C-alpha cells in the first residue's frame, strides 16, 4: 500500500519536480530567481523606513533558553589563547575605507556607555529566540573611524572557521548606521558566552540570524564585496547560496 501510494505520489509530482530540479540546476534560471531577490530587497527598502526599529520586547518575553547556532567554539589556537586570557588582549580592528583606522581594546568598548535592547533573533531555519543584548552602536564606531565617502559596505571578519574557511558577513550602510545595529559584548545581563560569540558579536536586528556574525575581530569598510573571499558578502552566501539580503 505504502509503495503504491508512494508510486502514485511520485508519478504526480515527478513531472513538476523533475522540471524544478532541472530548472534549479540551470544557472540562467537561478539568475532569474536572484533577480526576484533583488526585487524583494528593493521593495523592502522602499516600504521599510531607514530607521524603522525592530520590535523591542520586555524582560518577561525573554526566551528561557536561547539556543546557539553555527560555531559553538572557534577551534583555532589563537582563539583558545584569547579565551585562556579571558579576552584581555582582544582588540577590534577598524580599517579599510576609513581615514582613522582604529584598534580598540575590548575593555574600552565595554567601558563606554552602551545600548541595551531586547530583540528577537530569527534564524533562516524558522525558529526565533528573544534575548537582551548589550553593546555599542556600530554607527559610533564608524563615525570615530571617519568612514570614507567611497565606502558602500561594512565587512565583519570573525575568528571562527567553517572547515578551512573563515566566517565573515557584511551589511550595507543602511543597516550599518541603523540605531539598533550594535557590536554586542553582553547578553541577558552577562558577558557573551563562547557559543553566543564571545567576546564581540554583531546584532543586525532587521535581518535573519546568519547576518549577526559572532567572534568579531575586524571591521573593514569597502567599496565592493567582489574581492572578499567568495565575493558574495558572507560565509553562507559564498558556500550555501544564501541571500546576501536577509530581511525576509
Amino acid at each position: 500500500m505504502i509503495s503504491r501510494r508512494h508510486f502514485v505520489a511520485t508519478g504526480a509530482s515527478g513531472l513538476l519536480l523533475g522540471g524544478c530540479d532541472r530548472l534549479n540546476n540551470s544557472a540562467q534560471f537561478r539568475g532569474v530567481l536572484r533577480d526576484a531577490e533583488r526585487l524583494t530587497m528593493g521593495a523592502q527598502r522602499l516600504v521599510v523606513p531607514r530607521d524603522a526599529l525592530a520590535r523591542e520586547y520586555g524582560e518577561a518575553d525573554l526566551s528561557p533558553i536561547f539556543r546557539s547556532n553555527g560555531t559553538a567554539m572557534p577551534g583555532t589556537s589563537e582563539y583558545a589563547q584569547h579565551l585562556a586570557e579571558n579576552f584581555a588582549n582582544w582588540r577590534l580592528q577598524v580599517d579599510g575605507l576609513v581615514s582613522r583606522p582604529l584598534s580598540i581594546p575590548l575593555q574600552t568598548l565595554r567601558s563606554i556607555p552602551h545600548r541595551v535592547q531586547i530583540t528577537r533573533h530569527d534564524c533562516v531555519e524558522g525558529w526565533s529566540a528573544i534575548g537582551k543584548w548589550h553593546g555599542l552602536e556600530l554607527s559610533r564606531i564608524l563615525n570615530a573611524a571617519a568612514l570614507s565617502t567611497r565606502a558602500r559596505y561594512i565587512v565583519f571578519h570573525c575568528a571562527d572557521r567553517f572547515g578551512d574557511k573563515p566566517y565573515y558577513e557584511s551589511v550595507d550602510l543602511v543597516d550599518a548606521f541603523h540605531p539598533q545595529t550594535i557590536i554586542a559584548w553582553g547578553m541577558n545581563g552577562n558577558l557573551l558566552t563562547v557559543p553566543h560569540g564571545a567576546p564581540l558579536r554583531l546584532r543586525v536586528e532587521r535581518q535573519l540570524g546568519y547576518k549577526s556574525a559572532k567572534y568579531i575581530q575586524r571591521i573593514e569598510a569597502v567599496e565592493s564585496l567582489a574581492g572578499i573571499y567568495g565575493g558574495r558578502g558572507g560565509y553562507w552566501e559564498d558556500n550555501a547560496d544564501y541571500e546576501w539580503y536577509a530581511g525576509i
Partner: protein
Amino acid sequence: MDQAAATAEPIEEPVPAPAPRIAHRHRLPTRLWHWVNALTVFIMLMSGLMIFNAHPRLYWGQFGANFDHPWLMFHGRPIPGWATIPSTYNLAAARRWHLAFAWILVIGLVTFLITSLINRHVQRDLAPTPDEVKPKHIWHDVQEHARLRFPTGEAALRYNILQKLSYVAVIFVLLPLMLLSGLAMSPAMDASWPWLLDIFVGRQSARSIHFICAMAILAFIIVHLTMVVLAGPLNEIGSMITGRFRVPPERPQQ
C-alpha cells in the same frame, strides 16, 4: 419513475438528445489567474515544505526554538523529496523559489481582486445570496454533493453555495492570511509594520498560521480536483482553458 406519469404515458418515444448547449463561463482574467495559480501554488507548497524541513516544529507566541514547547514536532526531515522543491535538502534554493514565486502569487491575487471587483465577478458570481446562506439550503447542497448529484442545466452555470463558500474562503481568507503571515515572518517587515506581529500575536504564531493555511489550501486543492473529476474532467478543465462549457442537460423531472 413516478407512478402517475408512467400510466399517463405508457409508451415512451425515444427523445432525440438535444444538441449540447455551449455556454461561456470563466472570463479571461479568471482563467489566466487559475492556471498561473495552479502552477504557483504547487511551487509555493513544495518549496514551503522544504523550508519546513529545516525546522519541522511549530510554536505559538513571539519566540520558539528547540528548547521551547512546540505544538507540532517532527524528527529529522519529515517531508519526503517527492513533495519538496528542490527534491534534495537545500534551504537556500527552496527560499529562492518560495520568495520569487510569492511575487507571482501576490501580483496575481491583487490583480484578480481588482479586476473581479470592477467587472463584478465577485459581486455577481462569488458573493452568496441571502437565500443561499440559509442553513436549510446549505444542508440541501451538502446532501446533493454527498449523493454526487451535481447541478445541471442553468444551475450548472452558477456556483453552488459550497463552491462559493470555498472559493470565498480561499480568495478572501486563506490567500490574504498566507501573504500577511508570510510577511510577519520577515524581520524587516516587522520593523516597518509592527501590526503584523500584533495581528498574529507573534512571529512564531504567524509561522504556525502560515503552515495551517497552507494545509487548508492543500485540502482545498484535493477536494477541488476530486470534484473536477467527479463532475466531468474534460468539460470542466476544457471550460477553464477555453471558457466554453458544455451545459449538462437538465435531469428529467421526477
